[in-house]
């Protein structure tokens, strides 16, 4: 009799152990992007496979970017732009940080770098703990959300000429470029993100967006090397009011502008020291723009 009781009890325990986790299996089957699941990403000699990133995406990314990659994860509701930008909608296939010309798709390497670098002034952390293979898989996964990747090829990365020597003349020339292309309208005459247009800016989806503040010590979103800054204003940040100046600024002038922008930044730099020696004044917004 007692043995029967124990047998029943054992069966019940066994059934509970098997049955209780079932909702978890059920959730796994909801997700369906099979048509583009064969997407690949190529980073050097590493090939990333979208299907291999499913688990990592679910564990780390879905909370912001959403199960369907549309940027509507559970946390998106609580991210209030411009203080906290909304998560990227991968289905649109539009990315800020690219090495490619405006309007084109980024390279796999661009997305790979963005995952590890994170995006300051947003909820996107640095995911540097992944292996390179895992990151490459995630790049493929990000790509599989948008039909753009099946219909278009990434743009050709822009050419960045070798960085010249920093000189007082170049910094002064950079200030002229800053005035001529009216960077100050958004970024302010001293790079403090307080230009006359700053409060009115919206991204392509009509959400408020703030210009970059060069002075508060945070890193530019798409990298903080001189090459990164050069690339940012020559490719533009697609989906935002920051346009590409590739048609307005010559490569040599672009370096001048990089050097001038460095004078705003909180970090110590040669450019800052030179600007201090020169007693460089901010641009005058009421002065006629310098001639090219």
């Amino acid at each position: 009799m007692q043995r029967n009781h124990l047998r029943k009890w054992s069966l019940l325990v066994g059934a509970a152990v098997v049955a209780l986790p079932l909702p978890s299996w059920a959730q796994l089957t909801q997700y369906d992007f099979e048509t583009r699941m064969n997407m690949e990403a190529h980073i050097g000699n590493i090939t990333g496979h979208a299907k291999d990133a499913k688990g990592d995406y679910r564990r780390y990314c879905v909370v912001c970017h959403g199960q369907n990659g549309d940027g509507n994860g559970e946390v998106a509701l609580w991210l209030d732009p411009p203080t906290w930008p909304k998560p990227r909608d991968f289905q649109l296939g539009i990315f800020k940080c690219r090495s490619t010309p405006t309007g084109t798709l980024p390279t796999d390497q661009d997305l790979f770098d963005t995952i590890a670098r994170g995006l300051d002034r947003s909820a996107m952390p640095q995911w540097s703990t992944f292996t390179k293979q895992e990151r490459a898989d995630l790049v493929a996964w990000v790509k599989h959300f948008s039909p753009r990747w099946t219909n278009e090829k990434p743009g050709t990365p822009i050419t960045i000429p070798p960085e010249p020597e920093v000189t007082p003349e170049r910094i002064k020339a950079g200030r002229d470029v800053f005035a001529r292309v009216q960077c100050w309208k958004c970024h302010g005459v001293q790079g403090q993100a307080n230009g006359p247009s700053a409060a009115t800016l919206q991204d392509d989806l009509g959400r408020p967006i703030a210009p970059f503040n060069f002075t508060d010590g945070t890193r530019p979103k798409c990298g903080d090397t001189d090459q990164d800054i050069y690339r940012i204003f020559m490719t533009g940040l697609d989906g935002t009011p920051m346009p590409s100046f590739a048609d307005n600024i010559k490569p040599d002038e672009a370096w001048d502008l990089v050097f001038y922008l460095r004078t705003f930044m909180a970090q110590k730099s040669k450019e800052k020291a030179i600007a201090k020696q020169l007693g460089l004044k901010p641009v005058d917004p009421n002065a006629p723009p310098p001639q090219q």
Partner: protein
Amino acid sequence: MHVSTRSHLRKGFRFAPSLFSLALVVGSVVLCCSQPAKALPAFARKYGLRCSACHESWPMLNFFGQKFKDNGYQLMNDRDAPIWQNPGYWPVTFRITPIWHRVSTGKVLVDTYSGGALTGTNTAITRVTSSGFDLSGLDFHTGGTLEKNFSFYVLPSSDNTASFHFETVMARLDNLFGSPWLNVKFGKFELDNLLSEKRILTLTGNGGIYQLYHFVPQGDGNVFGKMGDNQLGLEVMGHSWNDRTRYSAALLSTSDGTPGLVYSNAYTGFFTASQAFDAGKFGVQRVGFYAMVGEAPTSWLTSGGPTGALPGTGAGNKPFSREGFVGQFYFGQHVDLTVVTQHGEDNAWFGQGYGDFIGGTVPNNNVPGTVLPAGSQNPTWNGVLLEPHYVYSPQLIFIGRYETIRMSQQANGSGSLNPSASNFGNISTYTIGYRYNPFMTSRAGFAWHNEYNWLHQDGTGPSLGLNTTNINTSELLIGFDFDF
């Protein structure tokens, strides 16, 4: 205990299946109807990340969570300082676990009765099994940043009767001189064990701790060498920017984390270092080592006899050490294995029970003129811990653990009057279980927890004048583990 208790328990046990079935049904209904709670665990709320971002399975950290912790609870972006948070944000999380558990201990010495009176022999050895609903203690976790690169952690923790103590109280200065290689922690904190006992995935009495982190030989009086207990001290730690390489060095009071200068002026050092490697699709693998080397007192000034020790007067410091290797190996996104080894050694004085300080008394006191019994020697032992996981998804993890500790040299050597058996005090234990989180949000944690533990120890059971016996203890635990 009365021997008739056993048959009484048996009778009670007949009703257990019905009661247990009812509990399971209720549990299942609750689980199936669960909705995401609207509460906010401290860090997940601050950064808008799910539990799974930092935890392989809450509360055990994954690599990203370890990096976050090593950075002083910072993601190292521009929003780490609390000034960016809504003023209403308060970084507090509580955790408690209502459970049902069944504990069965193989050999317990009990009184025997006949006709309402003690029998002639008076005692017997019997198995004692009991079951019932219970609670864990309550933890209030508060932690985070006070400002960029200034972090803290305070954890008032209670037992299941709400008697509180400070489990953790520490402040930390991070990224000194702008370098991740230099961070300083001060206060009471968990030692930098790669496999953290404070984040253990199991909850039973014997399975809810790592035996390797607390082991001392039978009769040993070393009050301190317990790596699993939070300790008072100062820690310097550093890591590479991606946390692949990390080290820590701590100077600790030899007090086993007990506040107040109850022991002595003895200090202990704890050192760890590890290196992680990328292994492609397998994930990041990590190997490292740890060493704990210290001294603890064996003699005390007394008042009212040799056993009445005066707090804070410990002297006659003797050495002890624990050292071993740690490996964390991932085999893709679902399977991982953590391995910890240990070689431990206590001085012969500890082996003979000197050093222990209990409520102001010391059973043995190394006062002037005391000599060790003949045949005394340093007790030494070796142990290994294997903990595999199968992570089906961030919401469901299966856990296993096997630990074994083997004495390699007993304190009472062959020259003793009563030399100890070579296996005296050896431990073997295994634990299996699973944790299922019915929901996974950035707001709260909730796990349905099932676990079974079995522990065997050689020679520590009652003897009744015969050879000492071994003890087998088993525990089954079911509960709701949640934080808010």
